[in-house]
């Protein structure tokens, strides 16, 4: 049996042992990994596809692909980060299918100038959450993030919503750390700018 040793005193993540067992054909070990991460994968897929049926399909396809490719997992990254990479790719494939075959990649539309500099100066006060009903606000948030290019939406989701570190996000997406930081900045500014259009209007300030 393969032994898992960590260099020095570094702690070994419990997933490492589960992955090793799953590689040797222990399906129960793999099922433990599925139960551990299915909700996160479902959430990430939902954020990217904005569609719950697609997100369910992504959960199934991503775990299946992970199982098939388990021998390729090097172990120099976390299993979860590796799984996220698969889930993001599967989610982008679902988006492509919805767009009747048009390519969707994390590099799409990221060259846009929008959001490179903040323009809208309006404050949102007193509190957008008080001004809108919960479902109305949810719809605004959904429409707003849906309008974001996939390359920005994915970075924002992993970094700001799912709480991955910049390094983990870079690793999961195969991007450099500066690229992640640049996309995150622009994603945040674009979302803020687009939300301002709703929140300013409701304040009666009009739109610039």
């Amino acid at each position, binding site marked *: 049996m393969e032994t898992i040793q960590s260099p020095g005193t570094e702690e070994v993540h419990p997933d490492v042992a589960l992955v090793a067992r799953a590689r040797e054909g222990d*399906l129960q070990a*793999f*099922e433990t990994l*599925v*139960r551990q991460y*299915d*909700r996160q994968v*479902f*959430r990430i897929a*939902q*954020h990217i596809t904005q569609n*719950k049926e697609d997100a*369910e399909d992504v*959960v*199934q396809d991503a*775990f*299946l692909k992970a*199982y*098939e490719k388990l021998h390729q997992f090097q172990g120099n990254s976390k299993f979860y980060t590796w799984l996220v990479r698969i889930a993001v790719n599967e989610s982008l494939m679902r988006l492509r299918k919805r767009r009747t075959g048009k390519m969707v990649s994390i590099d799409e539309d990221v060259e846009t100038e929008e959001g490179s*500099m*903040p323009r809208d*100066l*309006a*404050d*949102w006060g007193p509190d*957008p959450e008080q001004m809108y009903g919960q479902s109305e*606000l*949810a719809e605004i*948030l959904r429409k707003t*993030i849906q309008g974001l290019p996939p390359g920005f939406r994915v970075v*924002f989701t992993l970094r*700001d*919503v799912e*709480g991955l570190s*910049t390094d983990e996000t870079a690793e999961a997406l195969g991007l450099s750390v500066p690229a992640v*930081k640049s996309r*995150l*900045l622009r994603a*945040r*500014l674009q*979302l*803020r700018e687009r*939300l*301002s259009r709703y929140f300013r209007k409701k304040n009666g300030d009009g739109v610039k």
Partner: protein
Amino acid sequence: MALLDDLLDDEVSAALRRDLDEHLNGCEHCFITMNTTRQTIEFYANRELYPLPEPIRERLHSAIMDKCRKC
């Protein structure tokens, strides 16, 4: 803007944080941008999505494990 982003992520030194806080006190544009960007992140981080219902979760598990067995 990149510095304000680092400030949002708490990735600045104490000295730079002092300088940026001082700037924010006197610059309405940056102050509003910072606050509304922070709110934007909070909205999405706290946003409730459709949860994965247990019966669907179990169905997905069965389908995944069935296919894995056939691999």
